[in-house]
């Protein structure tokens, strides 16, 4: 299995902690800027909270996508991955999960604290965290496809945002929608189920698409 790939990427992340912290601080700062800019009108803040947190999470997870494959590409490890007798899709899945553990999980853990700035109720905070927990792995999995397609291109960082951000739209709609629905008394169940479905579909399809893209990029 690809457990040791996850282990390796976590080890590398530990040795370069600054990269991990940049993503987290970017998220915290973007989310905190809005109340300062919009002003302390509690009703407006409450309405915009889920959207702001989710957009910040999308941008934060984009920020580190470039690094997902590029360092392995530059030092030749990626060639060795392509030549591994193990399935490339499983290796990619391992790398995407490691990316989520390093960039997604800290955002999920931080979001309830940031939600307090927007005066969200305890229920809304819970739904927000749950939606991020289901949604952020999808961001890493879809992002991996974009990162693989733009590998080795000049200005790949901008290109990857143009490729990947449109694909993030459904996650954004249902992620932020879950909190609004629960605030409106409709219950967040439907939205969360859809996010779960996105997660399952991307778990199956994204590693395969990424593996194909990597083989094309490396040729």
């Amino acid at each position: 299995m690809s457990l040791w790939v996850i282990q390796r990427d976590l080890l590398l992340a530990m040795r370069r902690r600054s990269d991990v912290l940049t993503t987290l601080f970017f998220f915290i700062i973007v989310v905190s800027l809005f109340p300062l800019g919009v002003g302390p009108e509690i009703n407006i803040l409450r309405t915009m909270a889920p959207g702001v947190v989710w957009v910040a999470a999308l941008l934060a997870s984009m920020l580190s996508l470039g690094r997902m494959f590029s360092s392995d590409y530059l030092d030749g490890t990626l060639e060795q991955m392509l030549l591994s007798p193990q399935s490339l899709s499983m290796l990619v899945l391992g790398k995407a999960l490691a990316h989520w553990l390093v960039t997604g999980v800290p955002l999920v853990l931080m979001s309830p604290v940031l939600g307090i700035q927007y005066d969200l109720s305890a229920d809304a905070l819970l739904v927000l965290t749950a939606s991020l927990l289901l949604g952020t792995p999808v961001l890493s999995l879809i992002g991996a496809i974009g990162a693989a397609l733009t590998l080795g291109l000049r200005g790949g960082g901008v290109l990857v945002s143009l490729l990947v951000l449109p694909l993030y739209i459904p996650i954004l709609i249902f992620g932020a929608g879950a909190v609004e629905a629960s605030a409106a008394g409709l219950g967040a169940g439907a939205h969360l189920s859809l996010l779960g479905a996105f997660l399952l579909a991307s778990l199956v399809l994204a590693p395969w698409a990424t593996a194909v893209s990597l083989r094309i990029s490396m040729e």
Partner: protein
Amino acid sequence: MSILQGSDLECVRGDRRLFRDINFSLNAGELLQVHGPNGSGKTSLLRMLCGLATPAHGKICWHGTDIRSLKGDYYGAITYLGHLSGVKDDLTAIENLRISSALAGVEIEAKKAHEALQHMGLGGRELLPAKVLSQGQRRRVALARLLVCGTVLWILDEPLAALDSAAVKLMQTLLEQHLGKGGMVVMTTHQEIDITTGATQRLQLT
């Protein structure tokens, strides 16, 4: 039938044809040395042999089957060392070796990794991060993989680059032992290397 066979291989880069009609066959215990000036397509040929690049024409067969359809079975039988050695700056020599061999499908214990690094002349430096090692020492870390992987076919792109004369001698013994055990080697090198065991073929690219 030969174990590794390339027939009518052609390589095109952009609108330039690097080589065409390349034929070779390799049997157990044989070494294929690829010669040619810079830019003649040596690395391209080696990348084709590993299946990283597709030839514009012709095919490469392993035990009579196209390597394109073998995939994982073929990858398990080869070790490729390219220009980029796949050594991570932030990992120690021993972590690098253990991880790269796990990637090649062979999980090794710390003790075995220690022995391999010692053999490559890196004793006492196993726990240093690769970024403080010299170019030649990083190359040795990459080459240590050959000791532990136990594959049949080695595809080596300039394995002697940045190595000192003691390490070149070490590589020579390593290659001779491998060929003596019935292994196969395809390599490019600008340095002269004397291999006495097994049959040596030369392939000249223009």
